[in-house]
């Protein structure tokens, strides 16, 4: 019986550069999927694109492909990546340039566009599409003038078009993470767009591997001490059958483990209502999934159920929303806590004297209670050291700079100011806020272009 082996080699931009190479060289796979786009990555890429019209995509992906392109083409491993950012065509051109300069033949790049809906926002507002914040219910009017990027989450369907047209690398912009996996499955097995349970199974398979090694021993709360060789952790692979059942596994000889516990943690990751996992092509239901070990580092997942999707697509927009800065100072025994608290109080008095317009200020004692707060009370009241961290949020960068100038003078406060953890004077960092919303599917029109190398 035919199975399709789909590997994940990148869970986020900045994930291990070695992981995708290990996925290609560690054994047989049919597809390599790579995820580069976090919620606000698009706004960063849009800035790069505005400065340089040849930029605006994940450069790391091009560097990676220049290393593995030849092997992938020779071994017929297809690569699906949302590395296109705000400039999928530029990303494709960079790959074509790599192929040309290295004399690699046979590259055929599919480019998915149409996720960028910036140009359609005014029209939608005119037609009465509310575009309100999905999480907070805030009105779009509050941020409309500040929006710098707006991208709809496309699904698997345009990817299947690119594959049907013979692409061996598919580059998308904003796309759902599970879509990178569902696309190849629909293409390989010829699933229909109303085979709801199969589409749900492919979506669950994608959800299982979209966060890379989180399915195979990374970030494993249930037994991190028992995970061997996390330095060489194997990233996950799904072996999917035509009936939608799939086995989660990893290459032999790699670190970590694939167990029912590691897979279950990942199934629950960033899950909302488990009966209603929304995606562009199907609404998946996790409540009948069964997870069982069928061999060493082999876990079978069955029982996905699906139903028709909604008529909306999720959109993520980004807008600048002020500036932040955080200062960190280490205080040591004796009375480390009392010193940190006195320094914080001096700092806050001076900020008040200055009348700085702060949107928010927060004090944390790192190494003491900064993560769990009072939920897990810290033990003892006289730690050997604590780090005072004071962070602020303001509308303008000058306020953050003025705040920064008040940190070094704290050396004349309580004794034992041991220097600034973050190096020199902090610089204001721009905050890009995230605006999730929904748009009618009818306003988004994904396009696919396939381009040949030499």
């Amino acid at each position, binding site marked *: 019986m035919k199975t399709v082996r789909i590997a994940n080699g990148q869970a986020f931009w900045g994930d291990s550069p070695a992981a995708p190479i290990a996925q290609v060289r560690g054994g047989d796979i049919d597809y390599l999927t790579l995820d580069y786009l976090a919620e606000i990555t698009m706004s960063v890429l849009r800035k790069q694109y505005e400065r340089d019209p040849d930029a605006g995509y994940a450069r790391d992906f091009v560097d990676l492909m220049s290393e593995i392109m030849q092997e992938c083409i020779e071994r017929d491993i297809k690569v699906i990546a949302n590395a296109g950012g705000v400039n999928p065509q530029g990303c494709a051109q960079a790959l074509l340039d790599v192929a040309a300069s290295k004399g690699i033949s046979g590259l055929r790049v599919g480019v998915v566009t149409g996720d960028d809906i910036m140009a359609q926002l005014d029209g939608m507002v005119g037609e009465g599409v509310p575009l309100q914040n*999905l*999480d907070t219910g805030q009105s779009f009017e509050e941020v409309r003038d500040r929006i710098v990027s707006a991208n709809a989450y496309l699904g698997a369907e345009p990817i299947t078009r690119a594959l049907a047209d013979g692409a061996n690398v598919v580059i998308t912009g904003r796309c759902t993470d599970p879509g990178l996996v569902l696309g190849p499955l629909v293409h390989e097995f010829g699933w229909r767009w109303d085979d709801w349970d199969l589409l749900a199974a492919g979506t669950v398979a994608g959800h299982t591997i979209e966060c890379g090694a989180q399915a195979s021993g990374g970030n494993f709360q249930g037994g991190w001490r028992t995970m061997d060789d996390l330095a060489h952790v194997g990233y996950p692979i799904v072996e999917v059958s035509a009936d939608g059942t799939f086995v989660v596994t990893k290459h032999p000889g790699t670190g970590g483990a694939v167990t029912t516990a590691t897979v279950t943690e990942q199934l629950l990751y960033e*899950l*909302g209502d488990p009966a209603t996992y929304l995606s562009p092509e199907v609404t998946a239901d*996790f409540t009948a999934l069964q997870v069982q070990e069928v061999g060493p580092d082999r876990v079978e997942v069955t029982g996905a159920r699906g139903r028709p999707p909604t008529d909306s697509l999720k959109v993520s927009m980004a807008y600048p929303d002020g500036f932040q800065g955080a200062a960190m100072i280490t205080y040591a025994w004796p009375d480390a806590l009392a010193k940190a608290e006195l320094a914080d109080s001096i700092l806050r008095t001076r900020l008040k004297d200055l009348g700085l317009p702060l949107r928010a200020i927060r004090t944390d004692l790192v190494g003491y209670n900064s993560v769990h707060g009072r939920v897990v009370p810290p033990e003892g009241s006289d730690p050997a050291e604590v780090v005072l961290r004071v962070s602020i949020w303001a509308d303008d960068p000058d306020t953050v700079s003025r705040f920064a100038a008040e940190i070094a003078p704290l050396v004349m406060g309580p004794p034992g100011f041991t220097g600034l953890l973050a190096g020199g004077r902090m610089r204001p960092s721009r*905050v890009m806020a995230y605006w999730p919303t929904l748009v009618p599917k009818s306003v988004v029109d994904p396009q696919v272009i396939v381009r040949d190398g030499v």
Partner: protein
Amino acid sequence: MRLIDVAHARSGDKGDSVNIGLIARDRSDYPLLVREVTAERVAHHFAGVCLGEVKRYELPNLGALNFILTSALGGGGTTSLRVDAQGKAMGEALLFMEIDV
């Protein structure tokens, strides 16, 4: 007994909400989780941290519960000043909860 003795957890963010997946280490302990770890008790455990509400979903098929805590990340994502802006450690904070066996 604390939850950490019978369960493991993974948490993650969605905007200003955090989700916590709580999984029985031994499937036979799942009914204990259902009985002891109610949405009300989780809200009480995270009082002052979760400023919104707690919703609980049951997944007996996975021996797991899924909790959504709204208004729990100080604004969430990129705007939060929290050290743990994405709630990555909140699953472990839940495991500190005392339960009656």
